[in-house]
């Protein structure tokens, strides 16, 4: 394990995660592409200001207002996201998506997000500790921005594939061990 100094983008990542859980409208929610892009720009603006620390109070108010107004919509969107995750995960594993498992997982996910939802409503301040362990009950698939969310197995597969893509193979390692073993018997 490489003991590295902490990722300089940690704070930004936390803020993004939090905001994207709240402001999670999709393209189909908007009548036109232009309005969707405007929405996205607003969200990015907010994120930037939060990171830089400009107008934090005002933005937090905006967030709380948005949450209260669109509470239902947010939940529906989160549920939709969960469904997509399940579908993508099943697809990547080659298992046909079952309708009832979908229902179960959806319920589970909503329950999960309820717990996650509560802290953001309760607190007005950014609370990184509350948000950081984001529950991802279903793994694989994509989130709003198209980044794949990984569980352990996916991460392992990824690591393996990454190594092979870089030209590394287990044969290399074995060969090196063999060479070193036999070359170093005599001086």
């Amino acid at each position, binding site marked *: *394990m*490489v*003991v590295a*100094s902490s990722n300089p983008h940690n704070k930004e990542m936390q803020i993004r995660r939090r905001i994207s859980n709240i402001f999670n409208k999709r393209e189909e929610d908007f009548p036109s592409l232009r309005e969707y892009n405007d929405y996205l720009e607003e969200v990015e603006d907010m994120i930037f200001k939060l990171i830089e620390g400009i107008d934090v109070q005002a933005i937090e108010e905006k967030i709380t207002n948005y949450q209260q107004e669109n509470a239902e919509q947010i939940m529906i969107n989160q549920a939709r996201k969960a469904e997509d995750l399940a579908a993508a995960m099943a697809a990547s594993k080659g298992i046909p998506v079952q309708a009832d498992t979908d229902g179960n997982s959806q319920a589970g996910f909503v329950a999960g997000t309820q717990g996650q939802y509560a802290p953001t409503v309760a607190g007005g301040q950014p609370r990184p500790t509350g948000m950081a362990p984001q529950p991802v009950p279903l793994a694989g698939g994509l989130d709003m921005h198209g980044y794949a969310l990984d569980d352990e197995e996916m991460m392992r597969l990824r690591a393996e594939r990454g190594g092979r893509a870089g030209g590394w193979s287990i044969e290399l390692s*074995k060969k*090196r*061990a*063999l*060479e*070193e*073993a*036999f*070359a*170093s*018997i*005599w*001086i």
Partner: protein
Amino acid sequence: MADFHTSTHRANWIFSPQELVEKYKAANQRAIQTLEKYGTTQMEVDADGSLSYPEPIARDNADKHSRPKPLNIEEEQFMRVFYENKLREVCSAFYFPNKIQATALIYFKRFYLQWSVMEHHPKHIMLTCVYAACKIEENHVSAEELGKGISQDHQMILNYEMIVYQSLEFDLIVYAPYRSVEGFVNDMEEFCGVKDDENQMLKDLQETARLEVDKIMLTDAPHLFPPGQLALAALRNANEMHRVLDFEGLCCVLCRYLRRILARQNSKHTILQLIESLDAIDAWVRKFKFPTEKDMKHINRKLKSCWGHSSHDDSKKREKKRHKSHKSLNEAHNGPTLA
């Protein structure tokens, strides 16, 4: 890149037992002389990595009874062994991969071939070796992190770094037996025609062999034998515990395996030579003694007395110092610097 044949490890760092003893004696003698002349053996290390020697004291002040007694060679060895063990603990506390611990251990051993334990405190050298090993084995850890992890001053690590490299004569690629063990076990898989259920046995064998290598690494054997032989010795011992190649009686099978290795290499060495070396390595492991608490207390006290004689002058001299990195001099027994 991983070629042992052309490496400096093979060319410069494998000695015969007499050479080893001579080196230890020479370092010890030098330290004793420093003690006589200067009243302390501790070398001061500045921020730019240069060594400064302690100032000479007037001989008439020191009378026979208060003159500190230097460590002898066995005590130095105990010190080294104790700190090598500490080095292991530090590496496992940081969850470093095995190769880093092996490299750091070898650096530590080589450093104390050139210098005596009295001249540089093993505690600092140990951390610097870990730091250097991390750099070399492509697993860089900043000195601050190392310092924070063990609550030691990181500036001291950086000061000592250059000295450590110099003492290693910049021969930094070292070979540890761990990879060789792996190579031999892989080869044995083919040799034995191992079936699937025996795979687990081989894995166990590899694990035990690794533990054996750990034991071997703490002795002086890495200075005397190339890593391939160390690996074979470890495998032989592990084999005896596990009896993997036992179907025809252990000795025969192992002999056959060794003969096969030699045949593959077309080398002019005989199997007897190989077995001799393996036996010698075993002898070293059996000779190995780990110091007891009492021993360590005794040695530490002696060491402090070697350094501590000028300690009452230190507080006065330190106020006069304009040293920028005076943070690193947080130990009372540091000698005065030549500013």
